[in-house]
């Protein structure tokens, strides 16, 4: 197994872990963490596989894509955290209710 | 666009535009609204007159606009559409006058007359539709425009009646639509053609079964509005609507659109011979006959006058279907001419029922004892209409029944004559007691809710329309053989459809 595939598989693992946690964890902060782990996983797959150029230098385009992705992720995280705080202020809870009602 | 293409659009516009303007009129602008209504109705009548004259002189009118690739929006004027267009525009004028009188001082009149105009626009569109998709378009529009009229009173009963109406008509519309699209995928066109297009265009691989299924779908969709049993349930409920709306439903627009559609499908889509060949006409005739008998029996037991009239409509409108489904030119004449005759007679009856309700508060047959002494003119009109329905010569109904009967004999379907006779007996059984009670019994006492009496028995706007339509019903019977009479038109149509 090459380094590239190893890290790509770790990326897949992170993606799945994050997705799973996003499903089963109720706490909002935990869900936000899970989403971040998920995106880290995707980025890892993207960059790990970019080394398969056959030369010393990796493909720079995925690198740029990941930097874009990291900035997007931090933006979303920041917004999500404040949204969570607002929900906590309104409901006193950091979980989403099971059923939706007015 | 030249004038011959513009005229059908103008005829639509003559009621559409006033309708749209009326929606935005404040309630208090009574005069403007009435003027717009009457102007539109008169203009439409004039335009229809121009078109009749034009067609007589050999001009062909057709408006064609692209709808989707391969399908056009087509309005045209053939003999059948002229017959229906003329009927609706004449009756619309009369009904408008009646409605103006009937709804004096009631709320939401702008809304009412707006939808009223849309309703007639849709009917005229149904009449002039040049292909099945255009027909479908206006047919559904008619559903939508009628609904607010049925629920107009705003009571819970009205709301439920409206829901019932929608349940039937929208489901029917859906069936009609499936049938139409299916037919389109098989034939590649939907243009109404004399003698039909299905037998020519359906490819050899098309199974007869699918054509039969399509026929059933189409007839079921149309049968809802034409109130074929068992699709008739909405009509008696809809009688909660104000009297002008009932007139519109039963005589001018809705029920007629259904019956008209059946005529179109059998003649100009399938073609009578091909339909007979498919074996679909006989079941339809039987269904129509069953409807005639069943509804007449039901009418016998209704005490509410408008309900009795509603069942009478269900019965009478099926004469049209019966006439068309009886394969033979003479019966066809009877069916087609009944399109006009039933309209004239039934609108008279509903106007009269409305007058009784509005002037005296009389809603039930059991309350009608001696009512003719109080309202002789109204009851005279009523009597004419009722006798016509029964088929007493020389009134309009007689002509229809005569042609139907002789046509059935000619086509070798004697059982239909029996149905006609039985139906006439039943008609007599539910109409004659009313006439007797009205003229020959003494009033039981005070009327349920009598309006203060003016110089005439009621307002002239209420009295004039039934008298006019009753006279029409008399005239079309008496003058049946005069050129341009409905009968003459019907004969012309039947000749073309049967290719003679």
């Amino acid at each position: 197994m090459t380094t590239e595939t190893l890290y790509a598989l770790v990326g897949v693992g992170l993606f799945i872990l994050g997705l799973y946690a996003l499903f089963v964890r109720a706490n909002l902060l935990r869900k936000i963490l899970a989403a971040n782990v998920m995106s880290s996983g995707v980025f890892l797959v993207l960059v790990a596989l970019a080394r398969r150029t056959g030369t010393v230098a990796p493909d720079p385009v995925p690198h740029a894509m990941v930097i874009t992705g990291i900035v997007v992720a931090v933006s979303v995280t920041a917004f999500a955290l404040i949204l969570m705080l607002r929900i906590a202020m309104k409901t006193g809870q950091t979980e989403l209710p099971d059923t939706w009602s007015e | 666009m030249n004038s011959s293409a513009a005229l059908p659009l103008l005829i639509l516009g003559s009621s559409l535009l006033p309708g749209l303007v009326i929606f935005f009129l404040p309630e208090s602008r009574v005069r403007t609204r009435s003027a717009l209504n009457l102007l539109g109705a008169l203009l439409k009548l004039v335009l229809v007159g121009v078109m009749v004259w034009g067609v007589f002189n050999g001009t062909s009118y057709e408006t064609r606009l692209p709808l989707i690739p391969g399908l056009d929006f087509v309005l045209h004027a053939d003999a059948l559409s002229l017959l229906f267009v003329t009927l609706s525009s004449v009756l619309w004028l009369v009904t408008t006058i009646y409605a103006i009188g009937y709804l004096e001082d009631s709320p939401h009149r702008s809304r009412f007359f707006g939808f009223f105009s849309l309703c007639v626009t849709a009917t005229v569109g149904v009449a002039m539709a040049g292909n099945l998709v255009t027909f479908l378009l206006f047919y559904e529009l008619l559903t939508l425009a009628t609904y607010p009229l049925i629920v107009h009173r705003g009571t819970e009963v009205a709301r439920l009646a409206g829901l019932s109406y929608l349940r039937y008509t929208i489901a029917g519309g859906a069936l009609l639509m499936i049938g139409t699209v299916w037919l389109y995928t098989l034939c590649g066109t939907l243009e109404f053609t004399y003698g039909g297009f299905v037998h020519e265009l359906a490819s050899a691989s098309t199974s007869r079964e699918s054509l039969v299924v399509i026929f059933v779908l189409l007839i079921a969709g149309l049968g809802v509005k034409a109130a074929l049993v068992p699709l008739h349930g909405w009509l008696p409920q809809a009688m909660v609507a104000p009297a002008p709306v009932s007139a519109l439903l039963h005589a001018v627009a809705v029920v007629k659109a259904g019956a008209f559609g059946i005529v179109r499908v059998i003649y100009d889509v399938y073609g009578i011979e091909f339909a007979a060949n498919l074996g679909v006409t006989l079941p339809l005739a039987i269904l129509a006959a069953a409807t005639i008998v069943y509804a007449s029996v039901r009418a016998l037991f209704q005490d509410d006058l408008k309900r009795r009239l509603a069942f009478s409509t269900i019965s009478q409108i099926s004469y049209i279907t019966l006439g068309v489904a009886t394969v033979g030119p003479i019966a066809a004449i009877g069916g087609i001419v009944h399109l006009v005759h039933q309209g004239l007679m039934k609108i008279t009856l509903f106007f009269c029922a409305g007058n009784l309700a509005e002037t005296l508060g009389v809603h039930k047959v059991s309350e009608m004892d001696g009512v003719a002494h109080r309202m002789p003119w109204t009851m005279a009109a009523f009597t004419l209409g009722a006798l016509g329905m029964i088929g007493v010569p020389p009134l309009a109904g007689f002509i229809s029944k005569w042609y139907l009967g002789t046509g059935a004999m000619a086509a070798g379907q004697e059982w239909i004559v029996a149905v006609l006779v039985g139906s006439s007996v039943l008609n007599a059984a539910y109409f004659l007691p009313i006439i007797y009670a009205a003229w020959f019994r003494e009033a039981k006492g005070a009327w349920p809710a009598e309006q203060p009496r003016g110089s005439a028995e009621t307002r002239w706007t209420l009295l004039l329309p039934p008298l006019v339509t009753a006279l029409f019903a008399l005239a079309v019977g008496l003058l049946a053989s005069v050129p341009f009479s409905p009968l003459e038109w019907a004969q012309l149509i039947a000749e073309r459809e049967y290719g003679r």
Partner: protein
Amino acid sequence: MDTLNLAQWVFDSLTGTGLLWLAWMALASPQLIRAIVIFVAFGLLMALTWVRLDAVDIALAEVAIGAGLTGALLLAALAKLTAAQTEISKSDHRPRDGRAVRALRQLPAVLMFLVAAGLVYSVLSLPPVSSGLSVEVDANLGTSGVENPVTAVLLNFRGYDTLLEIFVLLLALLGVWSLGGLPPQRVAPAGPVLHTLAVVLTPVLILLAAYFLWAGVKGPGGAFQAGATLGAAGVLLQLAGWRPGPGFARVHWRLILVAGPALFILVALFTIVAGRHLLEYAPEHAGTLILLLESGATLSIGLTLAGLFFGERPDDGYDNDN
């Protein structure tokens, strides 16, 4: 297998396992504060991984943004949650689960397993060598105006992505502001150590940001790393007790916030009006334009990140609740 490769293999396996283990711990540990700390450690290990994968640019961005700022945001959010004295649920599982629901809970695990299997198979089936777009990037690097290929992709070849991305950042801030105010916080006095740290580090961080910006032309670095460093300075100042007073969001502050996006738009408009393609720079001006765009972006990114940490709209007279 020679020793170097064996060492690499051991290193890779350890890092990979460590990543998965830390991620699992962050998502499974019972205490939130622990989870966040572990998550930050996870971010640092990610940064190490990026270096291992020859992606130093990303490593910098990860340390500054992924681990650093995100960690700060998470900790701040947790602190504010506590300040709001909300009932933080101790258990992550909802208490009242029937048997059916519990059975259903197994479903995600099964589903995940299937998805994972499919993905692993797909990744393994990829061709072992693929040059991607590296050949094209190398061929055009000379006319891109910069020497660092990642910067070239970010600001020139795919500058349009970056244009949109800068707006994502601004959007996050606008979104946070539109949510309204947060509960008033009990701010601990900064104390002399933190104060000194802020005083010493803030200018250092600003210098560092300038360095990253400048270095990004040739090597690892660039607007995002620089902006994140500036943002860190802003976070430090806030930790030391500085608060944006009235007027923080008055015109000049907003001007800095929109400087980066606005410069991008102006350059875009300019290229279009000049009859070129969108964001098409003449090779001789490309370097200057990119540096200009990056400078604006750095300022905006820094201020935006600091603003995101602050978490609510500073009083600017336009968004008063009364």
